[in-house]
Structures are given as structure tokens and as C-alpha cells.
């Protein structure tokens, strides 16, 4: 089916729904690279006029990626909650935007909307929303998950402590963990990206993290971010896996490029649940996503990168994760060229995931070939603080020496807590006070002893 809009005496025609969605998207290099971006600025706005009048039901009858060809499409349509959708059935995308910004869309109403909306509907409405709209609606949504603590409560901001080391040196990793704890971070997860993906190495890292957690009785969870099939093997061998990690994307072909499918993820989810290690809850999965991943795997089906990103959240939603985050500035400048594009994408990703009911965090980050700097990251972290982001990722001094990119520093997380009046997860916050690490007072009763024991565990 084709769509058109007349503006200024010019008729803008779009050959398909996918083309409308792509053209309506704020400019980004990935859609330009794929040849999907609007042909002009006027063309972009014309596509938004088309979207505004488009009935939401269109997305239930016209799949952007064919049902027969893609298991993510099947997942989305087969699990769509028709009863929850009833109040939205007669709305256009524009009506949905207006409802989201109305007083009627309070926390409980937005929670009820989550199963009613498909990723394509959510992506579409985000394209009609300015940054302040994305922040406004996201900030009303509370998504709470639990493992050994409670992540996502209003008034709380959690952090992933990312103590990576270029050669996985356990003592170097322990030193970075101590640095993070001294600044009150690590409640979302203490998560290592391993330099070597071997099962033996990942198991060693997991045992060290688990030994540390038990030694100091820290109410948090650990994760070694290795491939999901490695985690399954480690679980089978009796390794102490808290959270199973996996990078995921919004098309079957792109997930194939990651070496995963819905059935493999299901197997991993069941394996992690079987360990029953969570004390407060059983959200056992940790997923990462990022705009551009399907295009880099040549698996985008002519659909714009932001819409595909939101489809990845449907994959995440099927497995009740504790944590989900976009690695927004990491995928590269061929997908998000500069600070402006990274900031917009970070807000879109956070809003869309939250609206779909997911515990969204953001890796506020950039690589050195993206045209961005610390000022851009300060801006994005401010906007995410105002949006009520569930968690952010922190590394020592903003410098990840293993992955060679820049994320937030521990000091940045502390700044966000102060500026927005938030606290870490309640159980973790209580632990920080108990051991004397709260509020950066550094009143740790016996730091020497703490450091020595940390060294022993490592």
C-alpha cells in the first residue's frame, strides 16, 4: 500500500509503510547509509503528517517484516494483548501522541498500555514526539525488577559497575570494583565484559565476583557478559551465574548474526531460573541493544534502525529481564554520527522501552570516531536523569580500557544522584550505610581490612 501527503504544492509519495516510518525519523547516519532516510527535510515532515493520521490498527494488519519470514514479527503479533488494546483501537498514531501527553496517561494507565502496544506503534509515536515529550512520558513510567535488590523504583537510580581489564587480571578488576564501591555504584549489576570469551576464563571471573559478593554480603548481582551459549554451558557445569547476558536485535536475521534465536534465549532463561539464586525476585536476564546492529549484519529488511531497535525490546520482553540497556553511542558513527544523533537516540530508546514495560537503562557513551565529547554525555545523562532512567553504566574515569570507548564515570553517577535527589536500590543503599560507604563520606570503619580482604578474594 502507498501513502502520500501534499505540502506546499508538492506531493510526497511513500511506497510502503516502512518508507513512511523511515522518512519520518529524525536524521541519522545509519538510515542515510541504508538509503532509507527522507529525501529532504520537507519530505521528513510530510511523512510525519502521514503517520499522524495513520490508524494504529494498520500495524496489526501490515507487518513491516513478513510474519512468515521472521520469528520476531511472529512473537510480536502472536503475543499482542487484544483486550488491553481495546481502548486504543480507534486511535491514530497522532491520537496516541496526544493521549500520552495528556493527564489521563498517568503511571497506572501507562502500565496498562504496555501490553496493548506493539513495538512498531511505539516507534511510530516516538517519531512524532520532541525530546521533551520523550522525557515527560518516560518519567511517568515505573518499571520495577528484582533479583537480590529492587531496581527501578521511583526516586532511585541504579548503576552497573563495569570493572573491565584488558587482560582480565582479577586483581586489576578487584581494584576497579573497589573504586566503584567507594563512590556508591554497582547495585544494578557488577558486570564484566571479558577480554577472553573462553568458558574457563569466564568461569574464573564469575567465581571471583561471586566470592567477593558473598565475602562482603553485598545485595547485588554479578554478570560476565559472554555469549548466551557459554552461559548455558557454565550453568550446566555448576558455575555461579546470577544473570545471563546477551546482545539482541529486532530481526531474526540480525539475531542469527549474534548466534541466537528465541529458542536459545528460552533455553538460557530456563537454565538461569533453575538455579533459583535470586532472593527477592527471579528476573534473571540482562540484554543489550543498539540502533544500527541489524544494518551492520545486513539484516534490516528496508526498515529504519530506530523501528528495528524497538522490535528488539519485544524480544527482551519475552524473557522478563532484570536489566536492559541500549549501548547508544557504541555502535559507531556510521549509525549515529554525532552528539546530537546519539542524544536523540538515547532518549528514544529509553522512552520506547519504558512504554513497552521494560526496565531500561542506558550506556551513556561514545567511541572516539563519533563526533561527540564529554559535554554531549553530560547533556544526555541530565536528560536521562530527568526521564527517570532505571540505571546507567559507570567505569573508572569514563575510560573503558578493555573496550576502548568512553562511558560515564563513577563521579557522574554520584552527580546524578545529588542533582535529581535519587538513591541507589534500597537494599544496596542500606548496605552502603551499614559498611560506611554511603554519601561519599568514606567513613568505612576499617578500610585497610576491607582492602586486604578484597585482595584475598581476588
Amino acid at each position, binding site marked *: 500500500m502507498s501513502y502520500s501527503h501534499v505540502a506546499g504544492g508538492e506531493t510526497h509519495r511513500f511506497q510502503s509503510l516502512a518508507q513512511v516510518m523511515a522518512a519520518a525519523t529524525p536524521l541519522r547516519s545509519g538510515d542515510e547509509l541504508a538509503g532509507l532516510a527522507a529525501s529532504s527535510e520537507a519530505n521528513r515532515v510530510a511523512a510525519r503528517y502521514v503517520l499522524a493520521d495513520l490508524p494504529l490498527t494498520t500495524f496489526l494488519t501490515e507487518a513491516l517484516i513478513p510474519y512468515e519470514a521472521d520469528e520476531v514479527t511472529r512473537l510480536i503479533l502472536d503475543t499482542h494483548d487484544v483486550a488491553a488494546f481495546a481502548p486504543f483501537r480507534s486511535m491514530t498514531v497522532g491520537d496516541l501522541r496526544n493521549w500520552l501527553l495528556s493527564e489521563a496517561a498517568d503511571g497506572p494507565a501507562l502500565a496498562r498500555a504496555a501490553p496493548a502496544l506493539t513495538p512498531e506503534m511505539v516507534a511510530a509515536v516516538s517519531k512524532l514526539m520532541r525530546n521533551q515529550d520523550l522525557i515527560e512520558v518516560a518519567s511517568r513510567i515505573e518499571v520495577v525488577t528484582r533479583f537480590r535488590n529492587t531496581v527501578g523504583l521511583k526516586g532511585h537510580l541504579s548503576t552497573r559497575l563495569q570493572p573491565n*581489564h584488558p587482560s582480565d587480571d582479577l586483581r586489576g578488576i578487584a*581494584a576497579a570494583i*573497589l573504586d566503584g564501591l567507594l563512590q556508591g555504584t554497582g547495585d544494578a549489576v557488577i558486570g564484566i565484559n571479558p577480554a577472553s570469551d573462553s568458558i574457563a576464563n569466564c568461569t574464573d571471573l564469575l567465581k571471583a565476583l561471586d566470592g567477593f559478593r558473598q565475602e562482603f554480603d553485598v545485595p547485588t548481582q554479578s554478570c560476565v557478559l559472554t555469549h548466551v551459549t557459554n552461559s548455558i554451558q557454565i550453568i550446566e557445569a555448576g558455575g555461579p551465574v546470577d544473570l545471563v547476558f546477551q546482545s539482541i536485535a529486532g530481526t531474526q536475521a540480525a539475531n542469527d548474526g549474534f548466534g541466537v534465536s528465541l529458542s536459545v534465549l528460552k533455553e538460557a532463561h530456563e537454565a538461569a531460573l533453575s538455579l533459583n539464586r535470586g532472593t527477592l525476585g527471579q528476573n534473571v536476564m540482562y540484554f543489550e541493544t543498539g540502533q544500527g546492529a541489524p544494518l551492520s549484519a545486513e539484516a534490516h529488511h528496508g526498515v529504519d534502525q530506530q523501528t528495528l531497535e524497538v522490535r528488539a525490546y519485544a524480544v527482551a520482553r519475552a524473557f522478563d529481564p532484570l536489566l536492559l540497556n541500549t549501548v547508544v553511542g557504541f555502535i559507531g558513527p556510521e549509525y549515529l554520527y554525532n552528539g546530537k544523533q546519539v542524544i536523540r537516540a538515547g532518549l528514544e530508546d529509553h522512552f520506547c522501552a519504558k512504554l513497552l514495560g521494560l526496565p531500561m537503562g542506558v550506556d551513556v557513551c561514545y567511541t*572516539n*570516531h563519533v563526533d561527540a565529547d564529554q559535554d554531549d554525555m553530560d547533556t544526555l545523562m541530565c536528560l536521562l536523569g530527568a526521564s527517570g532512567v532505571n540505571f546507567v553504566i559507570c567505569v573508572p574515569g569514563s575510560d573503558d580500557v578493555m573496550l576502548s570507548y568512553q562511558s560515564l564515570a563513577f563521579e557522574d553517577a554520584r552527580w546524578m544522584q545529588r542533582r535529581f535527589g535519587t538513591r541507589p536500590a534500597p537494599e544496596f543503599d542500606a548496605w552502603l550505610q551499614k559498611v560506611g560507604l554511603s554519601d561519599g563520606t568514606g567513613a568505612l570503619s576499617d578500610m585497610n581490612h576491607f582492602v586486604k580482604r578484597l585482595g584475598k578474594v581476588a
Partner: protein
Amino acid sequence: MSELEEAFRALKRLTPSRLRLEPGAGAAPLSAVLDFQASHASARDAITMPVDWAGVTRAIAPAEAIAVHSRADSREVYIRRPDLGRRLREADLARLPKGPFDLAIVVADGLSAHAVNDNGGALVAALLAAFADLNVAPVVLVEQGRVGIGDEVGAALGADLVLVLVGERPGLSVTNSLGAYLTRSPKVGTPDSARNCVSNIHGKGGLSLADATHKINWLVRYARKLGVTGVGLKDLSDTVPLLD
């Protein structure tokens, strides 16, 4: 110095991370902020500054060098269009001699001019000495080139093996790291799984030029013997001796 301060100093030596280890600390100190900015500036400069190709040419003389350009006309196009950085300008294609050759060596700027300026010429000179017994093509110097450009260059030269030396994406601590990629029977569209990679070649705790030359020499000799590169050729240069 207190026992605790000593312990913290010892911990900082365990990792190249920018550890602070300062209980009760507030905003990052200015020294750390400026040090970070200096590192980021160096990385950005490595990406945006041009390579001193005349200097590279002098460093490898008297061996012949041919300067060419990818289809990415500028740094901005290079960054936005990975496909164009892997293809040669058509006019430049005609300037390459037709072999056959045992080996072609290609030097590309990639994402770090610093890497090529600091070590590119010297590494090529060392490799040419190591491969004196082989029929090596004139060295091809590619502006705005990615790893994949070696496929088109190698095919045009009629080379059995192509070795691409390319500036790696700069980090904050190392901005001049070179990578080397070896591919047998190069042609446009060769997957990365068909290449062997020797990365992290630089003078700041990375692979030294001598060690890199040894590794690359080992890979070239075994690639010729086994007739394969990529997943079929495991890098055992640390344990298995060089072929005669």
C-alpha cells in the same frame, strides 16, 4: 604515607584504568579532567589528521611505492560510508601493475594517522627485508582506506597474498596502534573470517615492530605452505618455529 595510601597506590598499579580510590571524593579533580581531555584530543587528531605519505614513501625507499585513493573522497565520507573505504577509485586501479606476485603489502590510514606516521614506514621496511626471497609487489599506499581495500588491490595486482597495515581506532591511552591483516587469494567481498589479524602494534606496551615482523613472517610462511588464511590458519608463532 599511611598503610592505606600505600595499599591504594599498589592497587592503582594493577590496572591501566583511571582509578581514583579516594573515599569521600567529590567532583573529579581538574588534573584528571584535563588529562582525559588531552587523551581524547590526541585520539580525535589521530582520526582527523592526514598521513604524511611522503614520509612513509621515504621510509620504505628504495622500494617502489604507489599512492592511490579509495572511493571515499574525504574523512567525513570515510566515516559515514564504510563501503566506499573498501573500494579503489577506478582511475587508480589502472595504475597498479599486473603480477603475478607472491605478496602485496598495502598501507592504509584507517582510523589513525598517528599509527601510520609513527610505525608504518619502519614496519614495511622490516617486512620487505624479511621477504627478500619472495616476489613482492610495489607497496601500495591508500588514502581513506579500510581493511577491505586490500581485496581489490590484491586482486588487481594478481597477488597470492595481501597484507594490509592499517591504523586502528584510537583509544584514550593508545592512539597510534597499527593492525595487520593477511588474506589469501584476495577478491572484493572476502569475509573477515578469511583473514588473519595481528593487532595492537605500537610502542606503548603493545607488540613491538620486531615481534610484529616475526608474527607476520610466520603467518605468511604458513599461509603459503597450507594455502589458507583465516579460521583455517591458527597463529602459533609463539610456539611453532618459522619455516625455512
